[in-house]
């Protein structure tokens, strides 16, 4: 059977069996209702400009109507004006709430509970401005000069570190994306680990491995659980967007496709990196009870990444910590989108971060695949990671290949690898603004690829 079909069939089983779970179905319905309802509520509550209702008593109040309208507009509020016959009618209207306040004879304000509302401020400012204007006119200024005196030229402002346009909107998107990735990893990364342990503890894995190689089994599980997690994120999101649009609220910010694309890219990269690590951890233990302890290191890294990302986004997307941490593969998925959209990371930096992350993913897949292959058939106490990760012993290799060449390769390969990593790190430290940094990192990357290719060649040769 082809690798693709094997992976797909494993993924398909994960999807079908998991979507049968009642808990999952109920969660999906609840999530859809909550997010749809939330969007509708947000549209109802926050989507409209607030409106003040103002009652006017007497001609002097009525004369202030244009000033009140102007003031309200300047304050970003709507205003509805209503003429009232006398003070008694004004009292009634204020009491029953049909107006927020009443202006009596242009010099007194009547309110129900407190004089500190926005409506009162609008009216007060309008009246005050009107009074100042009248005084300036009395002092002999023309109408035009009096108005000019009231609206002086704006203070020139110099921005030292200009933030990109739409900073606030993008910050919101980034935080939502990060939160989604974090939740996805917490729920589905751990679900994946559990399902690997379940296959091991029920020993069904022995049957599976007679026909599906461990790597394909691992890939299929990662894919299946990932697709399900994506569905569980996207269905409520779409419901929220649709409901919000129908209720007349906000839709997807149409001007942010590159931010959304970036978040999605790192969502996938982050999920693959972490889910493979979770799956490998799941393969180390034989019982669900041992799993939580085994997952601790992965969870710890995940949480560090999340807090670091929150800190970086909220505080300083261009700080030294952010600059360095964005290139550390397990932290990149949470940090790079924020660094690119909110900070000053360039396309080159982004490419380097993606390359490093992919490199780390390949490394984790190789190590996790090895751990998975060796651990999955051993039942009993949790296995020591080091024993599983170290390369085949010289004896085994020599027995398999019958040559001494492989033994030499055993010493050469780690050295090359270490050199490659050192070059890459040096490149990152020098910085990608400097041609030297780019050169160092490129050489490092090529070396890594060469070592990887060499290793594969050896294996095939064997």
């Amino acid at each position: 059977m082809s690798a693709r079909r094997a992976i797909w069939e494993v993924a398909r089983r994960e999807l079908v069996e998991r979507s049968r779970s009642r808990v999952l179905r109920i969660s999906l319905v609840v999530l859809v209702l909550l997010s749809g309802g939330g969007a509708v509520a947000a549209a109802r509550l926050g989507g409209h400009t607030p409106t003040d209702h103002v009652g006017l008593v007497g001609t002097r109040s009525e004369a202030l109507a244009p000033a009140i309208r102007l003031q309200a507009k300047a304050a970003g509020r709507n205003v509805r004006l209503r003429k009232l016959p006398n003070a008694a009618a004004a009292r009634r209207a204020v009491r029953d709430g049909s107006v927020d306040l009443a202006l009596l004879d242009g010099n007194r304000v009547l309110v129900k509970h407190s004089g500190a509302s926005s409506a009162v401020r609008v009216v007060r400012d309008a009246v005050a401005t009107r009074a100042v204007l009248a005084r300036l006119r009395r002092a002999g200024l023309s109408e035009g000069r009096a108005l000019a005196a009231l609206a002086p030229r704006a203070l020139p402002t110099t921005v030292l570190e200009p933030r990109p346009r739409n900073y606030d909107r993008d910050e919101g998107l980034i935080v939502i994306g990060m939160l989604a990735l974090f939740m996805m990893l917490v729920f589905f990364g751990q679900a994946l680990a559990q399902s690997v342990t379940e296959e091991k503890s029920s020993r069904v894995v022995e049957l599976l491995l007679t026909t599906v190689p461990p790597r394909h089994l691992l890939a299929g599980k990662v894919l299946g659980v990932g697709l399900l997690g994506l569905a569980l994120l996207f269905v409520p999101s779409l419901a929220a967007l649709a409901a919000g649009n129908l209720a007349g609220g906000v839709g997807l910010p149409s001007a942010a496709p590159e931010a959304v694309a970036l978040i999605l890219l790192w969502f996938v990269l982050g999920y693959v990196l972490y889910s493979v690590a979770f799956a490998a951890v799941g393969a180390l233990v034989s019982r669900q009870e041992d799993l939580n302890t085994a997952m601790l290191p992965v969870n710890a890294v995940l949480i560090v990444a999340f807090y670091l990302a929150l800190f970086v986004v909220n505080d300083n997307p261009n700080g030294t910590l952010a600059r360095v941490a964005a290139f550390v593969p397990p932290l990149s998925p949470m940090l790079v989108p924020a660094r690119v959209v909110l900070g000053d990371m360039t396309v080159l930096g982004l490419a380097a971060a993606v390359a490093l992350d992919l490199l780390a993913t390949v490394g984790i897949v190789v190590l996790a695949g090895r751990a998975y292959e060796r651990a999955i058939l051993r039942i009993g106490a949790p296995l020591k990671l080091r024993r599983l990760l170290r390369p085949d012993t010289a004896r085994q290799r020599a027995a398999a290949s019958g040559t001494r060449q492989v033994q030499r390769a055993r010493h050469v390969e780690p050295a090359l690898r270490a050199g490659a990593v050192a070059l890459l790190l040096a490149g990152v430290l020098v910085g990608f603004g400097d041609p030297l940094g780019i050169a160092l990192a490129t050489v490092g990357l090529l070396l890594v690829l060469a070592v990887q290719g060499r290793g594969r060649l050896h294996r095939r040769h064997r």
Partner: protein
Amino acid sequence: MLELRDLHRSFGGLVAVDGVSFSVPAGAMFGFVGRNGAGKTTVMRIVCGLLAADAGTVTWNDRQITRERIGYMPEERGLYLKMRLADQLEYFAVLHGASHADGRAAARGWLERFGLGDRTAARVEELSHGNQQRVQLAAALVHGPELLILDEPFAGLDPIATDVMVAVLREQAARGVPVLISSHQLELVEQICESVAIIDRGRLLAWGAVEELRAGGPRLVRVDVRDAPADWTDSLPGAEVVERSDGRTVFELAPTGDPQRVLDVARAVGTVTYFAELRPSLAELFREAVSA
């Protein structure tokens, strides 16, 4: 023909399999016997591709073995406890290369065959031990394997369930499928298998047709004679007394010895009430081989 050539495998410092070679012809029921920890499961896992051998080869009809064509029943039973029977068997069939439709049909067919036709939607955890065992065998058969590797298939089965399983395995063998069975139940293996291999501490002690192995053991003859003088056995060359109790004597014959001659002498000295050539049972051969 399934052929194992000089398999070696060790774990850390422990040598689990040390130069095991034997072959299982098409259509044969082949018993693989040995004590706990003798290396049976390791050999079977190597054949299934679950473990790599440190050295040695496994070939099927002179070519490298295709894992998909093997039906395997692991010693540690393994099924998805919460998955429905029909879905589960379909999944195993599909993983071995069947289409979903064929897999589903085969799954239903085998469940019918094992009397679980009305429980296709049940989950494994709801089944009795015996029924779980049947589903486990169905999982090994559902993709129509060319080769069956069964690790302790009869462990924990009642006699009726054993009969059903033996009937199914005989049917498979009649189709030309070699059936490799490991078991502790030596009487059962002797009954159902034409050939056996005996393994101990990773080494193959003996293998071949059961009849030949039994014939290759010491040639024993038992004679019960009434009213014979105590020294009647002295006049028998080529036959050595190995056991004697009132009236009953067991001889071990030399290669040239003739059982008919023993009978003639016995009849001459008294009344023979019992005469038989004793062939060692598989269990006896096994004990002898292992203790040697």
